[in-house]
């Protein structure tokens, strides 16, 4: 979804930079505040940034014979809310603009707006919507990841259409043309990204439960004594730590992720 260096007219480049800047500045403040008030979430913040870093480096083939990369911004948006991703996504874009000649400094504003602002907000909105209508955590995460990815590419298409309207068919024609390149390619990638997000969240719900509860992603577990508790506090049966997660699904106290799924 990178718009290449110099490929937006100066007025557009400046316009998108001005549009993205407040989000990024606000995001930077949110990151600093989060780290200062909750130093324990640094690990998860790192994980969210790293996830975007990995995914946006990997170009994957798609069904229409072209290739593109996922964005990975939905994860951090669900965990820490979208402003945090405005900073993390922009850092990734800056790295790629400076070291990889992918994207660019003049188009950084436009690229940040699509990947670090629109993507996370759409993903977060999708997540909230799924949770609101009674969907579980994992369906919510899937929707967040997939739609954050897709929305980013749709935004890029619209940005290009605005800058280069078609001579005959105008803005709409140009938008359809760029959507044909970006959005169609991106559908399978968005699905794949959704599945990857679900995989990662399954790991996090087990291993980062306290953080997820504090961040409001998971509801606090019921008080001990109500049914069997898979939390460390139980200690009723002694098991080797390695086999801890694979208790039979039908038994009491299945992985907390599965219980969460049913909500």
């Amino acid at each position, binding site marked *: 979804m990178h718009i290449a260096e110099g490929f937006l007219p100066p007025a557009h480049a400046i316009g998108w930079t001005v549009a993205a800047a407040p989000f990024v500045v606000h995001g930077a403040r949110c990151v600093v505040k989060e780290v200062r008030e909750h130093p324990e979430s640094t690990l998860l913040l*790192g994980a969210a940034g790293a996830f975007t870093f990995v995914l946006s480096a990997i170009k994957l083939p798609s069904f229409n014979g072209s290739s593109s990369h996922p964005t990975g911004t939905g994860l951090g948006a669900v965990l820490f809310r979208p402003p945090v991703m405005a900073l993390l996504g922009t850092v990734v874009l800056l790295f790629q603009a400076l070291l990889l000649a992918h994207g660019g400094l003049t188009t950084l504003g436009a690229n940040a707006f699509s990947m670090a602002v629109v993507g996370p907000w759409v993903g977060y909105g999708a997540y909230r919507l799924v949770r609101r209508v009674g969907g579980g955590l994992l369906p919510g995460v899937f929707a967040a990841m997939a739609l954050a990815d897709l929305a980013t590419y749709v935004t890029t298409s619209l940005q290009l259409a605005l*800058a280069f309207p078609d001579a005959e068919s105008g803005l709409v024609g140009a938008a359809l043309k760029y959507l044909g390149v970006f959005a169609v390619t991106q559908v399978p990638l968005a699905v794949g990204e959704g599945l990857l997000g679900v995989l990662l969240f399954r*790991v996090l719900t087990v291993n980062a439960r306290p953080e997820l509860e504090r961040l409001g992603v998971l509801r606090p577990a019921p008080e001990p004594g109500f049914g069997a508790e898979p939390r460390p506090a139980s200690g009723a049966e002694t098991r080797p730590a390695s086999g801890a997660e694979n208790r039979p699904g039908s038994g009491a106290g299945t*992985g907390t992720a*599965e219980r969460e799924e049913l909500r």
Partner: protein
Amino acid sequence: MRRHLVTALLVLAVIALFATPLLLDRDSEYAGTDSQATELVQESDPGYEPWFESVFSPGSSEIESGLFALQAALGGGVLGYAIGRLRGRRTAQRAAAESPTPGP
């Protein structure tokens, strides 16, 4: 067991999703969408000249793919470190809870 089965199925689905295009359409070049968009811009507006050059361009496609690999490795390393730390913490908590003299 069910948990591991679901994990395995998810991993398989992701692999299948990205392997299928390669199997179905072997001749395609899988050009990047970024460069396709650049071509479209130049088609629709042949007079447009990029007005700014990248401050640094990798000298060859080998260097470029190496830098992409570096980006993925950095991200993967940090992600793995974070998850490893979280997992280790949980294991330690469990061990502390199960030991006869619980820690503070």
